[in-house]
């Protein structure tokens, strides 16, 4: 299972990546896409929406089932990946490239409460 060392993870199988511009990119892990199977629909949040840590804010649907995606940290949605929504199978192809949305975090320190790669791997 692919669990990149440079990302932070939520137990609910989202990954988070902090960029130099202070924005945090969110996606689902390789484990999550594999468990879901063929992904056919993404429902992404509205840009501008404020989310709390742990709040449902997107839905990933595979042929098999719909799965809620939770915001790993609090913040404001500043971008969504329309290219991924137009080609949902891209999440199966590379779950770490096909991000879902970007957050402007309320408090960057919240990232420290997420799991690192080793800790996430041990939950699988």
């Amino acid at each position, binding site marked *: 299972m692919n669990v990149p060392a440079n990302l932070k993870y939520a137990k609910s199988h989202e990954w988070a990546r902090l960029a130099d511009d202070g924005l945090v990119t969110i996606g689902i892990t390789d484990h999550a896409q594999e468990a879901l199977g063929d992904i*056919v629909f993404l429902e992404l949040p509205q840009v501008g929406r404020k989310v709390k840590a742990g709040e449902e804010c997107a839905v990933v649907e595979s*042929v098999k089932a719909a799965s809620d995606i939770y915001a790993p940290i609090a913040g404001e949605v500043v971008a969504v990946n329309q290219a991924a929504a137009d080609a949902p199978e891209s999440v199966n192809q590379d779950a770490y490239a096909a991000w879902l949305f970007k957050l402007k975090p309320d408090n960057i320190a919240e990232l420290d409460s997420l799991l690192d790669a080793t800790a996430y791997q041990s939950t699988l």
Partner: protein
Amino acid sequence: MAKQTPLYATHVRLGGKMVDFAGWDMPLHYGSQVEEHHLVRRDAGMFDVSHMLDIDLEGAGAHDLLHTLIANNVDKLTVPGRALYSCMLNPQGGVIDDLIVYFFRPDFYRVVVNAGTADKDLACIRQHAGDVQVKPRRDLAMIAVQGPNARAKTWAALPGAEAASSGLKPFHAAWFGDVLIARTGYTGEDGFELMIPAGRAEATWNALLAAGVKPAGLGARDTLRLEAGMPLYGQDMDEQTSPLVAGLAWTVDLDAPRDFIGKSVLAGRRIEKQTLGLLLTDKGVLRAHQKVFTAQGEGEITSGTFSPSMNRSIALARLPAAVAVGDTVEVEIRDKRLKATVVKPPFVRNGKILVTS
């Protein structure tokens, strides 16, 4: 612990993602459910359906037993090997199971029933069997080979099978030694269902693999059957559902003078709901139990999925009887109401898309 079919080890070796289905450990897919779906629509795929149960009925009373037990009329079966799809009903007119009956002689039939209902089916059959011998055939495995190239590839895999089965019309079966080859299936494609002694299941499977038939799992089986407009027991109908409401009126013979279990209730009941197809015009995925809002009242989706062939979402839904094909309805998905068109199933058969909105 979940039950395993004779092909369990084969599925694991092939990388099947094993899941519990009606108490059986079965392959959901072997990598990609969507690819397996396309393979069956375009070429040939095979499913292990050994969890389903073959029940042989033998004895002078077999014909009369089926007259009583099932809602379709076994008198339609006059040619040996002919198959009939039917519901078996409870006295209230609800569906105990849907099944296929193969006719060989008036004193010998084979009934194929669903895995999850096999025990109660057997109990129900035995209750009415009298002197008829009821033989559950757990010594048999069943492989469904489906797709436009399924028959040719089966013949390539099993020397001698072509001579035994090339003359079979749809819904007919023939013996090939101790293997029953039936031109039936649950995908809307041509193909065979092979009923094989369990000890030879793996060799048969491997021969089919060598002939270019790829394995497909229960995931693809579900999207294929839903595209083909075929109901799934436990989801589209159950013991509380009349076959007349479940879109199965064509399988219920109310005209012949014979009596069958549930007949008197069906004959007198007013039909307030019907089962039709939905085609989602907005983006999203229809799922079972979502509410449907129509001008004539509320309905509910019984099976919904993303259709790989149509690249959009489809469903079977129980709708008020006054709803008509072509109507636009709304489906509640999470906090939104999305638009869908009412269509007449099937959605896809023999590789062709049959409905548009």
